[in-house]
């Protein structure tokens, strides 16, 4: 099912009264987005950026101050959560501790009334189906307290899916899991989503997580959507400095730079030749993989140390114009055998170099000669 969010805004009243009253807090500001049917969408942003609020607005636990939410053609903005047909997985799973796994999964089915009411047989088969989907058949008679974090996560997903929701919402689904389980579970979420083809929205602050499994990602900052797109597109084409900084591990390297007479300068070195760009100071963002080791490359950095990561080598260096304390560049292990001396020279891959306006932080597009 398609979800349309139009001009969605949520304001929380400021605390205090009278003259001490603080300004309203805008958690979500004019969110416009059409989520295509059956896609897995990641809402991504630092904590406090409004992504969880957006999720709560979609599931109906909070009411928007302005704007509309449409499920296909149906306006659900004023509907209570139970009438929206959404399944939600909470950050700490919210499994009822006094019920066993089977009772937990069956709980939403027992709420159904009228013509939707299911017989005991139907309930059992639905529960088994959901349990099978997340592969927890053998845990059905355990209590949540006897399960590991990963197993609880599966139960929570099964409980959200058992009522065949139109939309599946996951709030920070992986944040309570350890690193290994996180990798496994995110594949699992992807698999389940593809199998059920239910439109799924999940919230995360971990760009790695969002990039790896989403069909689309939405990057948010302070309640405002920064960019929406396929993960690779957003990575290759960030709309502004924030998005560029937020995506990618190791993070992008930012330099103070300027454009002068068709050349991009970092410090005193002209690193790229550009076309049709007025002279101006800029922020230069270079992805770690945008550096090419070259003995006579235009950019020289002070070498700190190489870090071997197996297939690749990460070269850590410094540069006076760099905003990051250390510059990380990823190069082939073979090409750095001839690293000698205290200076390392790079040439740049122009497709991995982004320019941003110094004040607005908006992207400046350029062409190289």
């Amino acid at each position, binding site marked *: 099912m398609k979800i349309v969010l139009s001009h969605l805004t949520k304001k929380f009243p400021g605390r205090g009264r009278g003259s001490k009253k603080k300004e309203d807090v805008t958690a979500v500001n004019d969110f416009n987005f059409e989520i295509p049917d059956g896609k897995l969408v990641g809402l991504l942003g630092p904590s406090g950026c409004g992504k969880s609020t957006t999720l709560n607005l979609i*599931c*109906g*636990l909070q009411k928007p101050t302005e704007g509309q939410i449409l499920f296909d053609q149906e306006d659900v903005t004023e509907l*209570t*959560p*139970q*009438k929206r047909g*959404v*399944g*939600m997985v*909470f950050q*700490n799973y*919210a499994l*009822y*501790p*006094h019920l066993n796994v089977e009772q937990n999964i069956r*709980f*939403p089915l*027992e*709420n*159904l009334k009228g013509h939707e009411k299911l017989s005991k047989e139907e309930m059992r088969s639905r529960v088994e189906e959901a349990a099978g989907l997340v592969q927890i058949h053998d845990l059905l008679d355990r209590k949540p*307290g006897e399960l590991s974090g990963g197993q609880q996560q599966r139960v929570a997903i099964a*409980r959200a899916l058992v*009522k065949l929701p139109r939309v599946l919402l996951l709030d920070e689904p992986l944040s309570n899991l350890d690193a290994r389980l996180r990798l496994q579970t995110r594949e699992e979420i992807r698999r389940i989503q593809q199998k059920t083809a239910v439109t799924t929205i999940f919230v995360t602050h971990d760009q790695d997580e969002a990039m790896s499994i989403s069909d689309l990602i939405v990057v948010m900052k302070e309640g405002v959507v920064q960019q929406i797109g396929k993960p690779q597109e957003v990575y290759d084409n960030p709309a502004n400095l924030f998005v560029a900084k937020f995506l990618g591990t190791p993070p992008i390297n930012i330099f103070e730079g300027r454009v002068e007479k068709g050349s991009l300068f970092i410090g005193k070195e002209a690193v790229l030749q550009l076309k049709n760009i007025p002279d101006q100071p800029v922020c230069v963002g270079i992805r770690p993989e945008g550096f090419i080791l070259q003995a006579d490359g235009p950019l020289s950095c002070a070498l700190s140390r190489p870090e071997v990561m197996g297939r690749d080598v990460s070269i850590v260096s410094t540069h006076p114009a760099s905003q990051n304390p250390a510059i990380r560049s990823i190069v082939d292990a073979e090409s750095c055998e001839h690293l000698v001396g205290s200076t390392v020279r790079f040439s740049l891959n122009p497709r991995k170099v982004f320019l941003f306006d110094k004040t607005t932080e908006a992207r400046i597009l350029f062409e190289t000669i």
Partner: protein
Amino acid sequence: MEKQNVKGWLYLLPALLFLGAFMIYPLIDVFVYSFEEGYTSASQTFFGVGSYNYSYVLHDIYFLQALKNTFLLVVITVPLSTGLALLLSVALSSIKPLQELFQTIYFLPYVTNTLAVGLVFMILFKKTPYSDGLVNLLIHCFGGSSVDFIDGPYWAKMFVLCFYTIWVVMPFKILILTSALASVNPVYYNAAQVDGTSQFRIFFKITLPMISPMLFYLVITGFIGAFKAYSDAVALFGTNLNAAGMNTIVGYVYDMLYRDSGGYPSYASAAAIILFAIVLTITCVNLLVSKKHVHYH
């Protein structure tokens, strides 16, 4: 390792001595008294050993009256006060404005003196040849005829005693239950809401199991407290409870020890042991029932 053990016991010794002298020894002593026939505290002698004391107590009409009163009191006040406290706590936790004010008001009876409150109740319910209490005035308003709740028919006296007991025990229960309700993580309610759970079902399937340990604690202590009721009855009906027909088991024990007919520690001990057996049985039943319905997590 051995040395550590000795050290541990040494640390415990003062407490154990006190417990032994002031709790264990008297308990055993009561048990022994209850089987000593014809014991008098003046001469400290007895005729023989047997179950006569129990037989006497169990055939004493005053004891049977006290037993009946106590059971009625327990059966009426424990469920009612717990249920009412739960109702009030749920109501209290669902309102936001003035919540703290109400909590304070509901807690006030807990810090007031039993006898003082008893006096107030007596004035409220009393009827003399010259004047009616407030409650009787109210009954008049609704077209009824006055009832003497303090010196009148049995059911009226029982009503006042139950009313009074419930009123006295409620504050503590409300205090415990409101904090139990507040400790339920709201995320469960959110989850239930998203799943379309009715308010009724949320209360019985989520709220109640979540606060069941606290509820169970209140029921157990409520049962024990009600079985040991005495001062409440004294506050309302004066010290001659047998004459008023409103004695309780603890009151009977006290009377056997000290009041005009007093000086029968053996009967008192037997009655105390019977009370102990009753409380123990009820508590065991409670524990058995709780295994199934109380969820600790």
